[in-house]
C-alpha cells in the first residue's frame, strides 16, 4: 500500500476519490455491496458532510454518516 492512504469515507472532503477497500456496516453491508458500493469500486466525493453525496462507478448516492463511517477508502493521487 505504498503511496496510498486508507481513510474513513465520512472524513473525506469534496473532490477526493479513491477505491473502496472495506465495507463493514452492520446489517447494511450486503445492500451497500449490492448497489455497487463494494470493495474495488471507484468512488468520488461530490459533496462532503452529512449526508454526503458520492459517485460510485456510474451511480450517485446520498450516504448518511452512519454508513459513511463504515466504509474505508484508499485515496488515489
Amino acid at each position, binding site marked *: 500500500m505504498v503511496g496510498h492512504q486508507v481513510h474513513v469515507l465520512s472524513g473525506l472532503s469534496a473532490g477526493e476519490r479513491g477505491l473502496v477497500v472495506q465495507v463493514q456496516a452492520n*446489517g447494511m453491508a450486503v445492500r451497500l455491496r449490492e448497489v*455497487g458500493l463494494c470493495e474495488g469500486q471507484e468512488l468520488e466525493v461530490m459533496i462532503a458532510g452529512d449526508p454526503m453525496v458520492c459517485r460510485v462507478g456510474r*451511480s450517485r448516492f446520498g450516504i448518511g454518516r452512519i454508513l459513511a463511517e463504515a466504509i474505508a477508502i484508499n485515496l488515489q493521487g
Partner: protein
Amino acid sequence: MFISESTIEPAVKIRRLAIAGNPNSGKTTIFNALTGLHQKVGNYPGVTVEHREGLLSSSAEERIRLVDLPGAYSMVSRSLDERVMRDVLLGLMTGGEPIDGVIVVVDGSNLERHLYLATQIIDLGYPTILCLNMMDLAQRHGLTIDTGCLQQRLGVPVVETVGFRQEGIAELRSAAEQLKYSPASMLKLTLPAEVEQQVNELAEQVQNWRGDSSLRAVAIARLLLASVAVDSREVEGHLIPLELAGAVDQAVAHLTSAGIVAVDSVLVQARYGAIRDLYTGVVQQDQSVRKSRSDRVDRVLTHPLWGGTVFVSLMFVMFMAIFSWATPLMDGIEAVLGYAGEVVTRLIPEGTLQSLLVDGVIGGVGSVVVFLPQIWILFFFVGLLEDTGYMARAALLMNRLMNLVGLPGKSFIPLLSGYACAIPGIMAARTIENRRDRLVTILVVPLMSCSARLPVYLTVIGAIFAGQVWVQSGALLGLYVLGTVMALGVAWLLKRTMLQSPPTGLLIELPPYHRPNWGTIIRSMWERSVLFLKGAGSIIFAVSVVLWALAYFPQADPVAAEADPGLQLRQSYMGRMGQAIAPVIEPLGYDWKIGVGLVASFAAREVFVSTMGIVYGVGDEVTEEDATLREKIAADTWPDGRKVYTPLAGLSLLVFYVIACQCVSTLAIIKRETNSWRWPVFTFVYMTVLAYGAALITYQVGSSMGWGV
C-alpha cells in the same frame, strides 16, 4: 367431414410476463409504452404495494398480459416493494397467478450495476428478455455496447430502447411475442468450495420442498444464503418454511466454522466478479467523455445551502399552488353541484326525497369530489419531481431535519402537503420505503392544519379577538405552529414506542436527471384520483348520508320551524346528541350549541361554520367572512349571563379543532392506504383524546389563572 375452423372458438392462450428492474431504470415508461391505455391498477392481496397489469399484445391465438413489478435492487428483499417482486418471481405470492416469462429493464448507461439484479432474475430460468433502456444516455456518456456479444454471454435476447422517445418498443414487443423457452442459462459464480457445497446441499432441500428445477433450486439456495442478514421484521413474511430456515442456519454455522463469516457478502462479490468478466469486451468507454451533466447540476442542487434554497422555493410554489390553484377548481365543482341541486329541487317536490337527494346524495358526492383538485395538483408536482429525478435530492436535503424526530427525508413532502389537505399528503407517503416510517408519517399528517380548518379558525378568532388585527394574526400563526409541533411530537413519540425501527443508515440513489414524461405524470394524477374515489369515496359518501339523516329526522313541526330556523337542527337526533354530550364538553368551556357543531362536524370540520349558522338562526349560507355570525357568537351567553365565547373558551375550542380528527375522508384514506381498520381507529382515538386533553388543560389552567375569562 372436417369441422371448418371458423365454427370452433380457437382456445386463446394467455401468457403472463412480468416486467422487473431497478428503481430508476425507466421500467414504468417501458411498461406504459408496451401496454398503452390497457392497464388495471390494484393492490397485491394483503399488502399496499400497487399491482399494475396491462395487455401487451393480443392475437387470435394468444394474449400476452404484462405485470409491472415494483422496482428493486436485488432479489434479497429489504422493503415491501422488493418483497413483492421476489414473491411474484418465486411464485410465492398468495393468490397470484404464475409468471411465464420476464422482461428485465436495465439502465444501459449503468449496465454493470443493473446487471446485478438482471442476472439474479435470469438465474431463475424463466424465458427472459433483457431490455437495455436509456441508450441515449449511454451514448451521451460515450458508451458503446456490443449487444450481440452480451446476448450470447447472457443466453437471453437483448433489445435496446429509449423509453421516453418510444424507440425500440416495437422490437421489444415482437421479442416478447416470440419469447420461447430457451435452455436455462445461469451466471457462473466463482465461489469457495465450502460455499459451493452448502449451496448445493440447500438446493437439494429446496427441490424437496417445492420440486423446482435443479437450476432454479440452486438460484434459490444462493438467495437464501444471501438473505441471512436481512431483518425479517422490516420485510415481514418469510421466504421459506421453518425446516428450511433451520437448514440455512446450519449452513451458516458450518461456513462460520470453516472461516467464512459473511457468506452473503461472498455471494455478492462473486456475482459482481462474474458480471465484470461478462462486461469486459461488451462495453467500450470513450475516455474523452466522462463527466455527466447530472454531476455538475448536483453540485448545486444537493449543496446544503444552494440546494436548500432551491428546495424551499420549489416547496413554496407547490404549496401556493395547492392552496390557490385548487380554489377556482373547487369553486367550479361546487357550482356544478349547486346547479345539480337546483335542478333536483325544481324537479322533485319538497320533502324527504328532495332533501335526501340535495343535502344527502349531492352533498355527499360533493364532499368526495371536492378533494380532487388538491389531489391533482399535489400529484402533478410529486410526479414532476419524481420523474425528473429531483425527488431523491429533496429527500436527501430534508433527511437531517426529519431525522430529528426519527423520520426519513421522504416524510417531508407528505407532511407539507398536510397543510393543504391530509388526503393527498397521506397518499404521497407511498414513496417512503420503510413500512414503519411510512405508517408514522400517515398517522401524523392529519395533525397538520389543513385548509378545511381555516374557516373554523377565522370564525372563532374573529369572534373572540374582534378588532385586534395583530392578536388575530398571531393567534392564527400560533394554531399552525401548534399543529406542526403536535405532528412532529407524536411522530417522535411513535418512533420511540410503538413503531420503532432500527436506524439502518441513509442510502439514497440519485438517478440521472432527465426530461419529465408528461404522459407518465398525467397518468399518475389520474390513477390517484381513481384510487381515491374508489377507496375512500364510498365511505365518505355513506357517512355523509348518515349525517344528513341525523340532522333531518325527526322532523320538527313545520309551522314552528318556519318561525325559528334553528329549531329543526336543535330537536333533530344530531341536536339531541349535541345536548347529550354537553356535560362532557362543559369542562372544556363549551355549551350545547358548540356540542351540536362538534357532532355535525364529526365527518368534516368545515361544516362547523354552517352548523353554527343554523344553530344561531343566521341561516346555513353563512361563511367565515360573514360578520353577522361572528357578532352573534361573540354576544352569546350562558343561562347565568356569562359570555360563552370568552377568549379562553374560544382558545380551548381552537385547540380542539387544531388537534381533533374531524374528517371521515382522512380516516377512509388511512384505511385504504394501510389496508386495515386498525390504523384509522387508532388515529381517531389518539387525536380525539389528545384534542380533548389539550383543550381541557387550556381551559382549566386558563380559568384557574384567571386568563381571558
